[in-house]
């Protein structure tokens, strides 16, 4: 019993983990430097266009996180393994974090571009719906850790994944006001270069955050398991 209950050092901080925050910090630092000191100001919109370099990568990481959550949810339903559920929960929380970034920086840019913080544009509306679905998922997971909730939230994640392609093609289908710069070749080479650096930086941040969140969730479950064992031991003693 004694040996089984030991957590074999998983509760101890690993020396390599200390480098991860530095990596994320460097990625953001380089991205900021590129945006403010290495990219020209756009002619029509002026300096406010620089929101674009963090707004677009934030949206991309939101998609990436939610796609990870969906894949992990599918794997959880098929294999019924806890590690996939941990991955799904962790990536959903990160998707919400980046979703909040998108939904706050977008209106700030919109105020200058359209003269209003919010317009019922197809892309804005579909992005808001996805953020609300992610929020529902995160709230659901905080309510309970039961098997039914795990399966239900996995299904919610799969349903929500349909929003990702919808957001992407919404500009083309419904012809909204939101610009579609990516893939249209409308970016100057320096701007494209900065965008690529920011995208890479945000991807690094996503990986580092996901690792950290996954570790936290694993430890949480280990803690719950030990609490359960502790209560059983107490009952046996009585």
């Amino acid at each position, binding site marked *: 019993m004694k040996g089984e209950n030991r957590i074999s050092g998983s*509760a101890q901080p690993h020396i390599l983990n200390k480098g991860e925050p530095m990596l994320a910090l460097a990625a953001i630092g380089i991205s900021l430097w590129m945006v*403010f000191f290495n990219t020209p100001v756009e002619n029509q919109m*002026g300096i406010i266009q620089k929101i674009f370099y963090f707004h677009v990568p934030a949206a991309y990481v939101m998609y990436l996180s939610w796609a990870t959550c969906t894949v992990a949810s599918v794997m959880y339903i098929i294999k019924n393994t806890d590690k996939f559920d941990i991955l799904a929960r962790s990536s959903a929380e990160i998707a919400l974090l980046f979703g909040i970034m998108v939904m706050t920086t977008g209106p700030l840019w919109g105020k*200058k571009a359209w003269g209003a913080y919010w317009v019922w544009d197809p892309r804005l509306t579909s992005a808001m719906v996805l953020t609300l679905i992610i929020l529902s998922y995160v709230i659901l997971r905080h309510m309970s850790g039961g098997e039914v909730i795990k399966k239900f939230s996995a299904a919610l994640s799969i349903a929500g994944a349909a929003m990702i392609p919808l957001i992407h093609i919404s500009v083309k289908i419904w012809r909204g006001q939101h610009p579609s710069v990516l893939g249209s070749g409308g970016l100057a080479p320096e701007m494209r270069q900065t965008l690529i650096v920011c995208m890479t930086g945000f991807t690094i941040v996503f990986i580092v955050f996901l690792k950290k969140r996954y570790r936290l969730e694993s*430890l949480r479950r280990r803690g719950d398991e030990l609490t359960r064992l502790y209560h059983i031991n107490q009952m046996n003693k009585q």
Partner: protein
Amino acid sequence: MKFIVFSTSLLFSTMAMAADDYVAVDPSSIETISSTILLSVSYAIIVGLLIVYWGYMAYQTHKIRHRISTLEREVEL
């Protein structure tokens, strides 16, 4: 918290003004100043959220590690 938000906004404003590109956009115009404020707020929100979330995860990890160590000892006893 207010201090962090203020100083981050100030940092980004300074960075935006320090950039050579800024000068080319006519710094005297109110339009440019308001754009700079909106830009600073956007970047402050993004970087601020990243810092706060990282801090939350670090704090929770520390707390749970402490709880696990205590529980381990209790269960072994």
